């Protein structure tokens, strides 16, 4: 589990800090890579732009994807990930404030593996992070074809 890491796509530094803190509180010590917007997330995953030359065989164990993002929003990122063979099966968990029905429909429609709403109550957030970490980093078997 040492080499497995999480990609957190989150533009709000507060939320980023709280997510990292919640994961840590649950003893999830995997590396958390943060992308600040949709384009950066795609650049990272496909080894393009600022991340040119990154070994794209190394894929995160799970992508925690916010929906409201600068440049390219979460659903746009998801659409691109599912259209590309390299990331078609990559587990993506939508982690967002939105509880709009339409977002959930679109999220699942574009192939999200899970949809989690960020609770306001930090204790609940910590509990959610614990479950997410346990499930996606420990219980869930990743799709085959990864280095």
């Amino acid at each position, binding site marked *: 589990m040492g080499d497995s890491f999480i990609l957190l796509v989150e533009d709000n530094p507060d939320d980023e800090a709280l997510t990292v803190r919640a994961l840590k509180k649950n003893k999830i010590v995997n590396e958390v890579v943060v992308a600040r917007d949709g384009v950066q997330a795609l650049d990272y995953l496909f080894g393009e732009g600022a991340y040119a030359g990154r070994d794209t065989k190394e894929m995160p164990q799970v992508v925690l994807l916010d929906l409201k993002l600068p440049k390219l929003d979460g659903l746009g990122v998801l659409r691109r990930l599912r259209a590309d063979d390299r990331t078609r099966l990559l587990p993506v968990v939508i982690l967002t404030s939105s509880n709009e029905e339409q977002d959930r429909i679109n999220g699942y429609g574009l192939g999200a593996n899970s949809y989690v709403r960020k609770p306001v*109550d*930090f204790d609940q957030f910590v509990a959610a992070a614990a479950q997410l970490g346990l499930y996606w980093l420990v219980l869930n078997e990743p799709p085959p074809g990864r280095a």
Partner: protein
Amino acid sequence: MARTQDSTITKKLTRMNMLVSGAALLMACATFVTYDLFTFREAIVRNLSIQARVAGSNSVTALVFNDSHAAENTLSALKAAPNIVSAGIYSLDGQIFAAYRRDPNTQLPPFVSADQAETHLFKDGNVIVTNSIVFQGKPTGIVYIRSDLRTLNAQLRRYAIIAAVVLAASLWTALLLSSVFRRSITEPIVHLAEVARVVSRDKNYTVRATRPTGRDELSTLIESFNEMLVQIQERDGALQNARDQLEQRVDERTFQLAAANKELESFSYSVSHDLRAPLRSIDGFSQALLEDCTALLNDDGRAHLHRIRTATQRMGVMIDDFLNLARMTRAEIHIARVNVSSLARLITCELQNVEPQRQAEFRIEEGLETSADPRLLRLALENLLGNAWKFTSKRALSKIEFGTIHVNGTMAYFVRDNGAGFDPAYSDKLFGTFQRLHAATEFPGTGVGLATVQRIISRHGGRVWAEGAVEKGATFYFTL
């Protein structure tokens, strides 16, 4: 405009004309003929009487001298009158004295009574006149003359022919005249009917009926008809205009409404997403502060941070409730059959499951079904039964009843509890958004539940109201 030549009204008018003139002519002819016949009959009788008197006077000498031969000679002078069939002189005792017969086979009455004198009688197509013969003031004998009615019959035939000819000629003239006058009446009417037909068939209000020359009722009628058409045309135009404007306005409004809805949606989305993010930071970092810097804080500081967290979480719940309320107002309604009784039972079971230690008595009317949006109705019942559950939490035994009653002939559902109730003075505030009649410390809540219920019920076209008193329980009614 095809004109119907043989329109019914033309036929009717002709028939009427013919009948009226025919009847009048017939009456006139009949009257004249009858009058003339009577006069003619009287003339015949008078003539015969004179002839009888003449024959009588000429026969007096013969009677006195009992010379029947001379009397018969006198009578034979009647040969000059071709209508006289027979004649006779009778003595005072009624015995025949002398006779005249045009045809030798003709019979004369063998006896004529003196009582029959001075009479005339129409009998078997003949007329018989009997007269007494008076000599020096004394009756001397009786004269009898029988005449046929050939002159009368000939006269009758003549009259009949004249009447027929006059009748035929008059009727023909009447027909000719009426066809001339009739046209002046029927033509405008037929034309009017045709125009009316065109108007009602083609909805063409631009056509006009041609007014006949002269000023009579028909011309007034057609003029009024044309005026009516003008008014209808104007109104039709105005109506069409209004309809067009209305459609345009509806389109505009629909567009505005769609824009407003879209704006509202993006607003809701922003509220949902952006307003919660800072709250999460406040709560999260308050907690972080409590955990990381607990040694630097005294009890007051920790209490303050707890208050901050409570308030933050409360605001988070309020935002969620508010969004749910907004979403529900927008949500489309999908009507289906709903078993309301089962739904109520399900909700009460869930409530009891959450707090199994509470003593509760649920009474739910069986067999209630209705047409409603199942999701929304469930939400409304969850709120109402949830309220009943919440506000009876301080009772040793919660009594919650769900059923129906009839209010002013309309069936209303009700949820009744034996809970904390409310002050009826504030009952109008019950359904307001974020309005609460109880302190949050006493009974938790954000004040959105009943506002939600009201929106759901009003979106179903129903009404919701409440009755209650402080500490005497509450009853919430709603119609669908």
